[in-house]
């Protein structure tokens, strides 16, 4: 099981996610900006990607698309993390290839549950 790639520019949000997932036993690699994150993903394929949609340098949607195109169906699940919870954003995330969607603010417990479901789909 490889690492979880987290691309999130908000420190507080990132800290919450890291703490929650680490407590659940996962290794999280955190990047504040999109391009370094994508480079890391190319260097070593992650098990799962948590991508913030509101990144300052590059549009998160585009990064999701690029990652999905690169890794394909067999690649890691990609979760879009966004500040907007409206359905338009949701549809966009889906259209750009995200496998799941998390709106801020979220319940960290639910996030961990989501990650678990995505990483071990056959487990009950």
């Amino acid at each position, binding site marked *: 099981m490889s690492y979880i790639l987290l691309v999130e520019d*908000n*420190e507080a949000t990132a800290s919450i996610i890291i703490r929650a997932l680490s407590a659940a036993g996962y290794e999280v690699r955190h990047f504040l900006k999109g391009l370094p994150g994508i480079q890391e993903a190319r260097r070593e394929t992650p098990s799962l990607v948590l991508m913030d949609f509101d990144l300052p340098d590059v549009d998160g949607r585009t990064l999701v*698309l690029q990652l999905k195109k690169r890794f394909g169906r067999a690649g890691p699940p990609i979760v879009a993390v966004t500040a907007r919870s409206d*359905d338009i954003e949701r549809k966009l995330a889906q259209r750009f290839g995200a496998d799941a969607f998390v709106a801020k603010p979220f319940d960290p417990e639910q996030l961990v549950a989501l990650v678990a479901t995505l990483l071990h789909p056959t487990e009950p």
Partner: protein
Amino acid sequence: MDDASSIRLHIGATDITPEDVAAYVREQRAEHLQTMVLTGWLVLIYGLVSLLLLKLPFLYFIAVVMGALVLGSTQVMLRNDHMLDGAVWTFLLGQIGVLGLLLWADGDATAIGFLMLIPMALTGLLLKTDEHVIVAGLAVGALFLGRLHHVHWLDALGDVILPAVVGSVLVLISYLMSRRNLTLVEWSLFAQDKSEYRAELFYRQQEELRQTLRELKIANLKLERLNAELVEARQVAENASQAKSVFLSNMSHELRTPLSAIVGYTSSMLSVPMMYDNQELPTVFREDVELVMQSGQYLSDLINDMLDLSKIEAGKLELYCAPVQLDEVINSVLATARGLLKGKPLQLRADLPEDLPPVWADSTRVRQILLNLISNAVKFTETGSVTVAVSVEGQMARVAVIDTGIGIPPDAQATIFDRYEQAAHDTQRQYGGTGLGLDISKQLAIMHGGDLTLHSEVGKGSTFAFTLPLTTETAISAEPDPGGIAIFAPNSDDLEAILTVLVIEDDSATRAMIRRALEEDGHAVIDTHSGAEGLALAAGLVPDLIVLDVFLGDEDGWEVLAALKADAATATVPVVVCTVAEDRHRALRLGAACFLPKPVTPAAVRAGIHNAVRAHT
């Protein structure tokens, strides 16, 4: 004025002066004299021959010799230019002398009388009129003297009358001829004067024209210099504006980061015990921590508003428009607003027509406007209702937020949308809010192509209304929000159809237009104004397509193109180059997949993308 002499300089060799005429006349005289002398030689030879044949007395031989002398000396004098006068007189007087002598020696007056007419006639060609009279007089005198030797003076007088008359007529004729010639010369000189005058006029006009042209050139140069200065000043202003934007963007990040820590952590402390080893926050701390969180939230809102406002002011706020179903957005905002009621006995409702067509708008910003208006309405209304009513007016949808609140007095109405003007301070403190919301809402409404208006009556309530353009495109329908986390069904759409496009374009209007054209076709767009940043993005992202403008302000787009093709990571990405038509071959030679002619239109962008993708696969 030295114009006259300068004109002379200009007209030059064709100038004719009276001196030229005189010189010409002298030349003619010399020529005539030469001809006469030659003729004289022939006559002399004839005389000599007849003298010998007719066996005339010795006297005639003397006459021939004298004639030869006259002719000879005339000829000699003719060689010298300034002895011309002497030659003429010698010739004429010589003839008169010889003939007079002959008459004196031999008495036959008739023949001599006829012969004497010759010099009288020739004088007309050689001398002026007054001199002509003298010669004629001398000739007549010589005749008279010659006859006198043979007859009584009265008879001699009678003999010379006829020659005298003929001589006078000859003088008259030559006088009249010379007058005519003189008139002709005068006329030509006059004509010359006229043309000289015209030439002077023309030259003066030319000078004036040249002067005007010089002045024009100077004015042009000044204009060019002014233009250059303006371009420079504009560049300075743009740089300053750019620097301000960068500063704002940095400050925004600097301000937001600690604030999100404040809000995030306090919120977690209050509601996410899992983060703290599952320990709940003790009740005694809760109220204070809540206050910290609310303060942080308020600060965060204020900063967001201020940044929005300065972005709008700088013209840097961009709208991401799409077809939007207003009813979904309105219902969603109303649901959020219910949380603001805090127990007030207010009705929140929506009044929406059936079959409301979608509007072309940025849903986030519409939400922002609605939330601002609705939260204001809720704040200032104690009882009654807050209604969001939508109506279709022509090509626009009118969204009105109607409340039954305290209303706004007319003087406050006048300044309520004004930048930097806020309502009286107590209103601010009493009702909260950042005070900037209405300003931002109005600007956003205007940016969408509509406006935000107010109608209010104190004690009755207020109606804030804004308009949005309708669109015929179908909107993505929204579903109620189940809580923020969802797993999507496996996406059956072909991701390959969606392109990741990197747009490197200096001009913000063009950039926005290209982005809109691409996003409307469903592609993902990343844009930048900087070539250097574009190269970094291209290398990091490896997009499906790059749209590159060769004019990138300070940077050279051609260099960027070359760099893209030189880097192995980006070399295979098709590049659509945006440039003027003349450079198309250069673009294609440097590796561009396709080129977009300037000025760029959305249709051209689509076609260019289509071609580039087709060529690539």
